[in-house]
């Protein structure tokens, strides 16, 4: 059993067996992070480039730690320090990086589809670490791993995703992933932040927060992505919080064994109150810990593939 494609561009491209392979591998890699010597020699001699055109703390650090724990060499490039500021195109940046023979390029970009463009220009495997409002597959996989650890399984669960669905790549990846794994997904949020096509992806819409959380096994709260908003989507943060913010009082209507998740960064007091974010139902920091294991699994599974054919295809396309 191995991954079918050379890249991880989105959950949409993965089938259920591949998702389970990634989760099982991550589970088997957790012990590396739980001992004094947090390093194994597995990816010695592999080079990983973190190419981040957007701000990130968790994801970039998580990929860097994952690579280093597997003994790969990890190089970080951020937009402010890259030649993009001098006007180099994305494809030129990618081809120049490829000329230095990396094995894996991890890409975050503000535009949906940027990792796909890079993937077509390079022989290295490409991992999408978040592209615009499109997908964020490694975040979704670490969410699945966390749910599986807490609940034992994913199939049959009801997951409520609340907040800025429209601008959330985490929501998109999670709707694909959770429905593939046999869970039911309901979404709720300000009407302006609920794109109509979300129902075609397999999620059902609830009008209010209370309707969405009442029968949910897991509640995922999302941050308002102000940086992606081009106009006014809701009157004020205070009003948003009153309608779609999760606090201890509203949580009383949820199941007694509910699990609260958040992909971070958290805007305390807006979409989630501090006593809920830090409360007994919250697994926000477990999500972060699982992120390292998931990224180790992705790096391990991708770098082990012999994808000569897909590499050849990339070369041929470049030559055409």
């Amino acid at each position, binding site marked *: *059993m*191995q991954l079918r494609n050379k890249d991880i561009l989105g959950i949409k491209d993965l089938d259920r067996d591949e998702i389970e*392979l990634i989760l*099982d*591998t991550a*589970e*088997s*890699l957790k*012990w*590396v992070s739980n*001992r*004094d*010597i947090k*390093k*194994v*020699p*597995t990816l010695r*001699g592999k080079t990983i480039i973190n190419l981040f055109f957007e701000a990130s703390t968790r994801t970039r650090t998580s990929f860097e730690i994952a690579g280093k724990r*597997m003994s790969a060499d990890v190089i970080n490039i951020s937009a402010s320090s890259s030649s993009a500021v001098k006007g180099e195109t994305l494809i030129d940046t990618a081809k120049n990086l490829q000329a230095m023979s990396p094995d894996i390029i991890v890409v975050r970009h503000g535009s949906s589809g940027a990792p796909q463009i890079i993937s077509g220009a390079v022989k290295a495997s490409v991992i999408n670490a978040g592209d615009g409002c499109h997908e964020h597959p490694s975040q979704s996989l670490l969410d699945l791993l966390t749910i599986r650890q807490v609940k034992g399984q994913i199939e049959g669960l009801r997951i409520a995703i609340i907040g800025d669905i429209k601008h959330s790549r985490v929501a998109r990846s999670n709707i694909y992933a959770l429905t593939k794994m046999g869970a039911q997904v309901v979404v709720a949020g300000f009407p302006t932040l609920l794109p109509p096509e979300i129902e075609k992806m397999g999620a059902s819409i609830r009008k209010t927060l209370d309707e969405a959380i009442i029968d949910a096994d897991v509640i995922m709260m999302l941050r308002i992505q102000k940086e992606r908003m081009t106009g006014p989507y809701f009157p004020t943060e205070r009003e948003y919080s009153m309608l779609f913010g999760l606090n201890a009082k509203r949580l009383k209507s949820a199941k007694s064994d509910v699990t609260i998740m958040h992909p971070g960064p958290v805007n305390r007091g807006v979409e989630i109150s501090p006593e809920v974010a830090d409360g007994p139902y919250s697994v926000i920091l477990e999500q972060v810990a699982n992120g390292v294991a998931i990224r180790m699994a992705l790096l*391990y*599974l991708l*770098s*082990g*593939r*012999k994808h000569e054919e897909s590499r050849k295809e990339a070369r041929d396309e470049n030559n055409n």
Partner: protein
Amino acid sequence: MTSIKRKILDADGVNRAITRISHEILEANKGIENLALVGIRTGGVDLARYLSKKIEEIEGSSIPIGIIDITLYRDDLSIATHHPIVGSTEIDFSIDDKNLVLVDDVLYTGRTVRAAMDALIDFGRPKAIMLAVLIDRGHRELPIKADFVGKNVPTSKNDVIKARLEGDLGVDIFISKDD
């Protein structure tokens, strides 16, 4: 290519080997103080459980037992067609200053044992690492020797040895007869 099957150990043979190896381990370590077993996934896990059960029968108290998966330490990852599935490693005791007995079903090239020793040393600093195997089939490619051996079996490189350590115990050798 056809192959013929030959039994090299039956259930009684396996049980006698386990009993003898247990006594030898206890004799070499002068009892169970600081002693622990680590089974190499997957073939060594059941054998380590049998040995620990036998040692507990003899000594009256149990010893720590762990499981090690060597996948991340293999020396053929860069040439393998794809990375093998990683199994879990479960060592929930400190190995510092322990006398560890690594356990595997079949000793062959020695590469698995090399990987297991490197993996163990990243967990801490054991006082000593010993090696117990049910079958030593020869053809070593590294300078590695077992301390406790159930049975030495001369083999050809084409032979396949299968140890059954669940249910109907036994060890079979599948000898290829193509030339």
